């Protein structure tokens, strides 16, 4: 048996874990931990809009690549002969087909293309050859048909299947001047099957037998072999690529047009997470699996829509929450400081006004020395070993301006704020903090700055007075969002003034938060007066706008707090009084790994 070393002159690399660099795309390695051979594929793709055809039409043919495509023939309300060339940016008109027709097939490149078969009426067997400028006649197919599949080159083309009045299995091979018989598909089909590959290594997929078909067959230059079917059976779809790396998109499925996109790896089809933006039937395509073009088609009328397919080696991974252990004392509306692996939680309510302080090491909470003044809805900033707690509320009604400083071991009472309030927003560190908003009992917009020893009321107030908001950042670069009563307003602080910026998607109060002014997370909260536990939805701020993460907190809760960053955060406290802690892992990308089958 020939070894890999003998074939390629080198051994397969041995890794204990999969490589994470994008350089791994297309490489093969042995994962000694899982005991498997693996590779990384660029399998995630998306369709984006591109400039449209000059002539909207369906049931047209295509050839070429994503940046040098050819569209020809098709149907508006009648068969057309127009040809268009795409240069990666826009379509320009080329020389017309001699015979107007639709449901024809295409092969080749933009400057050396082949068009064959189709319907005018009547059914055509004629072939035309394009040289980048004009079409000339070639040899005729033995079998006139439309809705056939095609692939290959102008001098080595392949035609298969189609409608002759009945479903055809006939395969014909073109050598640049003459078509010769090339065997039969295992499944005769018509009404628009698609093709990919070359004359000696082709792929046929989709079409219509007695119903929509997903049947896929491989051709070796002589005969067809059945392979695994498309996930979505369909006809008048488009396809491109090679026998071992093909792309299928669009077509007529049940009950109507589809935009579904599937990728073939030589063995099986995988559905891409996103589809064509415009589902359609009778479109055409060009290119390869990693870089394709879809154009034309029919929705309820013919369209000129063009979409461009691009694959990435990496797959986006949404942020996620996981369990992170329990606090010792269940409570809500406490304050927080620190990071995901070194956090501090202090104050709160549950079962009464609390002065308790707990320290988190990334997996477990430990009770440490208590605050001097029990309270909740207080502000907190700093780190696990250098924190500041300020303002807050106690029941029976009492609003605080008390400030305490934590040195990693104990709390020391320091100078008070100028305005007593609860639900205050907070940013900064122990020696340079910012307190803003809150209620005492009326909603406040006041902003105070802490220099490590005293609080100073700043002339600039928030644009919207509110309490129980989310807040992140530093003394000179802070962010405030949400808050009472059920707001989504977001404001950004530059050290001297607050500016309104884009709002949260979900209005809420008593939410949790962590991060910075330009990269923040909002989670949990009350979204309406109807109950204490509002949405678990997590929203992420990128410095400009908020995006909702696909998944939220495992345990929906209000009056929660957070620590850390958008990459690695922590959520704890919650109402009803909660001990649950959740760990946040921020959005990322990963390579699309595949385990290779060995025998």
């Amino acid at each position, binding site marked *: 048996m020939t070894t890999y070393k003998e074939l390629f002159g080198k051994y397969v690399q041995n890794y204990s874990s999969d490589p994470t660099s994008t350089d791994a795309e297309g490489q093969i390695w042995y994962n000694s931990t899982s005991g498997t051979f693996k590779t990384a594929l660029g399998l995630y793709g998306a369709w984006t809009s591109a400039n*449209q055809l000059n002539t909207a039409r369906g049931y047209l043919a295509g050839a070429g690549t994503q940046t040098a495509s050819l569209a020809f023939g098709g149907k508006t309300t009648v068969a057309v002969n127009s040809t268009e060339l795409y240069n990666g940016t826009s379509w320009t008109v080329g020389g017309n087909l001699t015979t107007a027709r639709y449901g024809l097939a295409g092969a080749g490149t933009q400057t050396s293309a082949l068009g064959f078969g189709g319907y005018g009426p009547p059914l055509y067997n004629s072939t035309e050859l394009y040289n980048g400028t004009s079409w000339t006649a070639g040899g005729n197919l033995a079998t006139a048909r439309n*809705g056939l599949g095609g692939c290959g080159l102008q001098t080595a083309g392949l035609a298969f299947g189609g409608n002759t009045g009945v479903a055809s299995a006939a395969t014909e091979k073109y050598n640049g001047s003459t078509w010769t018989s090339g065997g039969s598909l295992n499944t005769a089909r018509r009404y628009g099957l698609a093709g990919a590959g070359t004359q000696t290594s082709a792929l046929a997929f989709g079409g219509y037998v007695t119903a929509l078909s997903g049947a896929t067959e491989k051709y070796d230059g002589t005969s067809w072999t059945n392979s695994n079917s498309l996930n979505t059976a369909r006809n008048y779809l488009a396809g491109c690529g090679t026998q071992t790396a093909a792309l299928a998109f669009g077509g007529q499925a049940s009950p109507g047009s589809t935009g579904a996109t599937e990728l073939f790896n030589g063995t099986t089809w995988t559905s891409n997470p996103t589809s064509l*933006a415009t589902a359609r039937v009778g479109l055409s395509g060009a290119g390869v699996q990693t870089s394709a073009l879809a154009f034309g088609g029919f929705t309820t009328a013919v369209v000129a829509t*063009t979409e461009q397919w691009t694959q990435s080696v990496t797959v986006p991974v949404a942020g996620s929450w996981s369990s992170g252990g329990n606090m010792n004392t269940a409570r809500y509306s406490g304050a927080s400081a620190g990071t995901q692996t070194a956090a501090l939680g202090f104050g709160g309510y549950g079962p009464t006004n609390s002065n308790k302080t707990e320290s988190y090491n990334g997996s477990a909470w430990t009770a440490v020395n208590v605050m001097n003044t029990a309270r909740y809805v207080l502000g907190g900033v700093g780190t696990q070993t250098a924190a500041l707690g300020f303002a807050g509320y106690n029941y029976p009604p009492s609003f605080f301006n008390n400030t305490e400083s934590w040195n990693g071991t104990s709390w020391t009472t320091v100078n008070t704020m100028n305005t007593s309030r609860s639900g205050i927003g907070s940013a900064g560190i122990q020696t340079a903090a910012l307190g803003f908003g809150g209620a005492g009992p009326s909603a406040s917009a006041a902003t105070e700055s802490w220099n490590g020893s005293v609080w100073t009321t700043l002339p600039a107030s928030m644009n919207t007075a509110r309490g129980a908001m989310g807040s992140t950042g530093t003394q000179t670069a802070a962010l405030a969002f949400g808050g009472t009563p059920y707001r989504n307003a977001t404001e950004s602080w530059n050290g001297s003034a607050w500016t309104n910026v884009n709002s949260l*998607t979900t209005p809420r109060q008593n939410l949790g938060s962590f991060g910075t002014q330009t990269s923040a997370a909002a989670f949990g909260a009350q979204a309406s007066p109807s109950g204490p536990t509002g949405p678990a939805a997590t929203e992420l701020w990128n410095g400009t706008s908020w995006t909702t993460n696909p998944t939220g907190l495992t345990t929906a809760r209000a009056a929660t707090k957070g620590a850390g960053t958008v990459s690695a955060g922590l959520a704890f406290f919650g109402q009803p009084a909660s001990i649950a802690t959740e760990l946040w892992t921020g959005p990322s990308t990963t390579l699309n790994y595949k385990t290779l089958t060995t025998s």
Partner: protein
Amino acid sequence: MALFIYGVASNYGKDFFTAQDRQNFFLRGFPGDVWVIGATEKGALWLAERGVEKTKAEAQAIVDGEVSKAQAAYDALPEDQKTNLNRQRPTAINLP
């Protein structure tokens, strides 16, 4: 909260929607230049910059009108064209 917002926007080609847009929010086009967009801030901004928001009922009415026109066009097709494309009579499209 509604999952989608609805609008009418004319696809002007390149950059009408980008790969980033496709990752940021749900987007699907329907007849009559109707678009269904995921109800996110980015989705709403995309529509605001490109078209006009409609209620679901308004958007559905536009699509229904296009389907009706397509059905009439289909009914007027010569029988051979229906046969050669295996075209089914257009059916109602229900917006998500």
